[in-house]
């Protein structure tokens, strides 16, 4: 079994809110295993439990039940946090400080110090594009600059595990690409990246594995490819030079069909129907231009599961 960077078993969190101590189950028996050296995308709608999970892992929130470990060390042990670099959602720092002061403060809390800390901090500030802002206090930083500083402080002590809460949140397309590049660069150096997001394009682009959390439960988890296995919604077949009688036969078998300048396009409900149609096309001597399985995208999977979860919880549907 590969080394696990994160292991959660039956992790639950119940908050008591308001004067009447209204019970809110933010997490319900979450099991999670993140292998070392992977990029793990933790996705889910707002209020699904992503940030609660992350806050439990970094020691900000105590679980109501269950157990979690970082590299085999229980999260209750402050030493477990030496192994993590954490970027909070919408990070904030002491606004009277300059970026190097922030890095010195947080570096010292990770046991760094002296010239080595300054050297590392300056190197990272350069990497995240803040070397021209060394004389500015954080108060004068834009949101993107604060996010970059947040990333720099997260990797300051070169931790083997990065836990990033919505790292692309609020960034422009360039900023998002830079963060993605930074995540990939860290992964290439053997780091484990665990990040939450609801920007699914980012997940599809860089993640090895994905966990979907809905209503405080992990509803789907696995390698990115495996999430789509068995989720072929349809098979598209394109062909040309098709006799009219074969076209009629294929239309009867297909869920939809259309004519375009290249020829014909049909959508079949599954591989079996597509194979039968292809046999008719070949027998008629027509040309097969392409056969394309249409899989459910991560976004479609996400929306469907969110709607299912809402329906099973008795909540309003996500979409009409």
């Amino acid at each position, binding site marked *: 079994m590969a080394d696990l960077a994160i292991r959660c078993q039956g992790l639950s969190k119940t*908050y008591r809110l308001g004067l009447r101590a209204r019970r809110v189950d933010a997490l319900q028996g979450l099991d999670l295993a993140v292998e070392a050296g992977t990029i793990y995308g933790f996705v889910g709608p707002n209020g699904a439990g992503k940030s609660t999970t992350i806050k439990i892992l970094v020691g*900000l*929130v*105590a679980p109501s039940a269950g157990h979690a470990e970082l590299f085999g060390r229980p999260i209750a042990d402050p030493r477990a*946090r*030496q192994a993590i670099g*954490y970027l909070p959602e919408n990070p904030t720092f*002491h606004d009277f400080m300059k970026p190097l002061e922030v890095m010195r403060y947080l570096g*010292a*809390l990770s046991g760094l110090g002296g010239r080595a800390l300054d050297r590392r901090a300056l190197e990272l500030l350069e990497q995240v594009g803040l070397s021209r802002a060394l004389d500015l206090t954080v108060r004068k930083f834009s949101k993107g600059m604060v996010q970059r500083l947040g990333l720099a402080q997260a990797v300051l002590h070169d931790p083997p595990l990065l836990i990033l809460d919505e790292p692309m949140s609020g960034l422009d397309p360039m900023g998002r690409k830079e963060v993605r590049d930074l995540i990939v660069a860290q992964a290439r150096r053997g780091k484990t990246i665990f990040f939450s997001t609801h920007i699914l394009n980012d997940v599809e682009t860089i993640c090895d594995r994905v966990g979907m959390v809905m209503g405080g439960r992990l509803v789907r988890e696995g390698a990115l490819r495996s999430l789509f296995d068995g989720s072929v919604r349809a098979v598209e077949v394109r062909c040309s030079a098709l006799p009219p009688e074969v076209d009629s036969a294929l239309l009867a078998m297909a869920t939809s069909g259309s004519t375009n300048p290249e020829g014909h396009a049909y959508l079949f409900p599954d591989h079996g129907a597509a194979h039968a149609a292809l046999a008719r096309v070949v027998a008629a001597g027509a040309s097969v231009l392409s056969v394309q399985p249409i899989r459910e995208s991560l976004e479609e999977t996400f929306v469907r599961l969110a709607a299912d979860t809402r329906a099973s919880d008795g909540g309003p549907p996500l979409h009409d």
Partner: protein
Amino acid sequence: MTSSTLTIARVTLAEALRDRLLYNLVVFAVLLVAGSLTISQLTLGDQFRIIANIGTSATQVFGLLIAVFLGVGLVSREMDRRTCYPALARPVSRAGFVVGKYLGLLATLGLNVALMAAATGVMLSLYVGQQALSVPAFAAAFALTFLQLAVAGALAVLFSTFSTATLSAIFALSIVGAGWLFGEVRAFWVAARQVELKGLIRVLDALLPNMSLLDLKESVTYGDPVTLGSVLARAAYGAGYAGVLVALAALVFSRRDVR
């Protein structure tokens, strides 16, 4: 004490020294002490006592306000602004964080008391002909005032670990006020032979901070003798009381979710 705790203390001091509230109160207090020179002219012959009284009282009152209003923000402001997130996600214990914040507050209060003591000392030096200034008594009075502020600050920190900044300030100021007044109330109850209240008096005596015990204003003002043993015993009481409060604050904060 770990280096993380000292790092947090240093940053807390740096933050406090940038706080306008601190400067407003300190400047006002120093002006008041300086103004005591004028006020003392209204009375013939007692200038020394008036200046000594105003100097020590101003240090106490403004120091208490600084201790409470900075103290209530130490933890709650870090949580409200979420500046504590990247710090607490590092190998720092919650207790170490609270102690570090408190030590930073103590350093701020220490600087404040030293500044006020210096201002009062300069004013008094102009009138040393009227009454001999007992330097040990003067130093002991300001040292115990520092401990008064330490107790008030610890109360503020304790309340801020589980309540809002506004409520924490109200709670802390109420308890400090009750601690000041309780000496008088106890004397009245005891003199009135209220036997049925003795239990309550004992409980309040143990729970409320005895601020009068940490007050040596009279010794500076009237030159009453002060023994080293008495000062050390009072200091031990103040330090112990503040220590228990900070330990409680650390315990409460260790169990609190930061969200």
